[in-house]
């Protein structure tokens, strides 16, 4: 590009001066693109290639086509992981959007120490998930955890939390909500502050206030903002890994083994590389489809 620019300069300097011959910065993008291609795109393609083979530790890889994918579809463990992922996703997303909307409205009403309150709201999602998992282990311990003790003081019998096959997903969803509802709250706050004040004034003139104003005015206007938050959370929630790996190890049994957890176990604990890669690519497809559905929705509700 620089030689072309040089020739143009030699031939018609006045054109350069008039700004028609634009300077090119294109090459500056190549180092980053090269990195992404080498470190991310190439491994992705490589994983896709592995997923078409019967590749395990210590055996000669053998091309088997889509057999790994077919095996996944009939593997009860994978189907369980699929179910776990969606149950956890549904519970956590619903909790986080609902609580996040509430938090956003509460934050929007803060007049005193506004800066401090927002700063505090940021802390949970800046913490490493490992730390959140460690806190959950200590706080939610069935026998000596303080949460059960606090519930006991108001007469609630002790709960098993992360140790209960039945409630583990809800417990994990609650812990993740502690960490991420404030994030949704701050996005909602941003959305609220970009809404025109005139709409709310008009609603007030018409006597639409309180709960009705929330349902008929605020919530519809927040639609695009909530969808943005939902996309961001969806990508993380469908790939749920850290918290279950730390706090439950996918257990008890396989009650909290998400697809990502399943793929990790297959690949790194059982060394079934082909099988694991197929599971990971299936998960990637799930994430991508979900994001695209939300993107479509967002375009539909944009005003």
């Amino acid at each position, binding site marked *: 590009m620089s030689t072309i620019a040089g020739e143009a300069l030699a031939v018609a300097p006045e054109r350069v*001066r008039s700004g028609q011959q634009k300077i090119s*910065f*294109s090459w*500056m*993008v190549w*180092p*980053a*693109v090269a*990195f*992404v291609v080498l470190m*991310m*795109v*190439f*491994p*992705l393609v*490589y*994983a896709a290639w*592995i997923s078409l083979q019967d590749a395990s530790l210590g055996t000669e890889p053998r091309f088997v086509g889509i057999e790994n994918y077919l095996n996944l579809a009939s593997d009860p463990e994978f189907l369980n992981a699929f179910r776990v992922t969606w149950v956890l996703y549904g519970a956590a997303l619903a909790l986080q959007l609902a609580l996040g909307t509430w938090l956003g409205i*509460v934050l929007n*009403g803060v007049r005193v120490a506004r800066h401090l*309150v927002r700063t*505090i*709201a*940021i*802390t949970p999602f*800046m*913490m*490493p*998930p*490992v*730390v959140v*998992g*460690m*806190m959950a282990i*200590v706080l939610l311990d069935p026998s*000596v955890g*303080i949460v059960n*003790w606090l519930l006991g003081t108001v007469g609630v019998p002790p709960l098993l939390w992360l140790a209960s096959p039945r409630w583990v997903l809800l417990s994990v969803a609650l812990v993740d909500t*502690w960490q991420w509802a404030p*994030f949704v709250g701050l*996005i909602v706050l*941003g959305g609220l502050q970009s809404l025109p004040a005139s709409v709310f004034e008009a609603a007030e003139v018409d006597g639409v*206030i*309180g709960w009705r104003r929330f349902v008929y005015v605020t919530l519809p206007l927040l639609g695009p903002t909530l969808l*943005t938050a939902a*996309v961001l959370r969806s990508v993380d929630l469908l790939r749920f890994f*850290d918290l279950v790996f*730390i706090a439950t190890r996918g257990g008890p049994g396989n009650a909290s083994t998400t697809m*990502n957890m399943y*793929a*990790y176990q297959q*690949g*790194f604990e059982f060394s079934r590389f082909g099988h694991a890669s197929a599971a*990971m*690519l299936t*998960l*990637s497809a799930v*994430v*991508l489809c979900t994001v695209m559905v939300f*993107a479509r929705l967002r375009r539909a509700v944009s005003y």
Partner: protein
Amino acid sequence: MTPPAARRILGRLQVAAMLVAVLAPLAWMVLSSFKVSRDVMALPPRLIFTPTLDNYRELFLRTDFLHNTWNSLVVALGATLLGLVLGAPAAFAIAWHRTTWPATLTLFARMAPGTLFLLPWFILFSQVDLVGTYTVLILTHGAITVPVALWTLLPYFDALPRALIESAQMDGCRPHAILGRIALPLVAPGLVVAAILCFVFTWNYFLFALALSGFDTKTAIVASFNFIGEGVTNWGALMAAATMIALPPLVLALLVQRHLVSGLSSGAVKG
């Protein structure tokens, strides 16, 4: 209709509820880290206790935690630098030429689960004997920092007046000088936000270091995860480790809190 005074009190109560919900677990973590084992598990909880530094002493003197923290620091700083060096010029070029495909490419690549990259990385880096080195940890965490830096910086470069770049170019300024002497200094606040986000995300990320770090390069997060695995029932020490790991990202995040949320959500808003 509720009278305004009642509504105000209701509002304050909601703020208080939010603050308690966020801060109580954190306070419990920090308090526990200063308690002897017996006090950590005591029920009803002991709010008044004799604070001790035993847990921290054990953490730093009896385990490799100090070295692990150093490893975390090296990896996080290295990956942050990598992210900025590659991400900043790319963001500038993308903002200037309005060719969005490289940004979209990084975004899509980011959507794949980390486990997907891990397996090929493990196989490929094993062949060149790099598994367990700082190099491999910094490179792999670049998969987080390059997209983060790129997407965080895009809006900042986008906001630069085009005339400024055009006039610099008319004065014979070369592209790299335009970037280095004009564009970068002007987006300095964005660089700070991007650097902090890169650092925090790398510091907090668990999976890559779990699978790719060696005994000497084990990061603080992986080390503290191993404490759980070893069935450490010394909750005081566990909470001391948790407090130490949580501290750097929290301090950094508070410095840029105002720009943080827009930085975090810009990827989705623009995509």
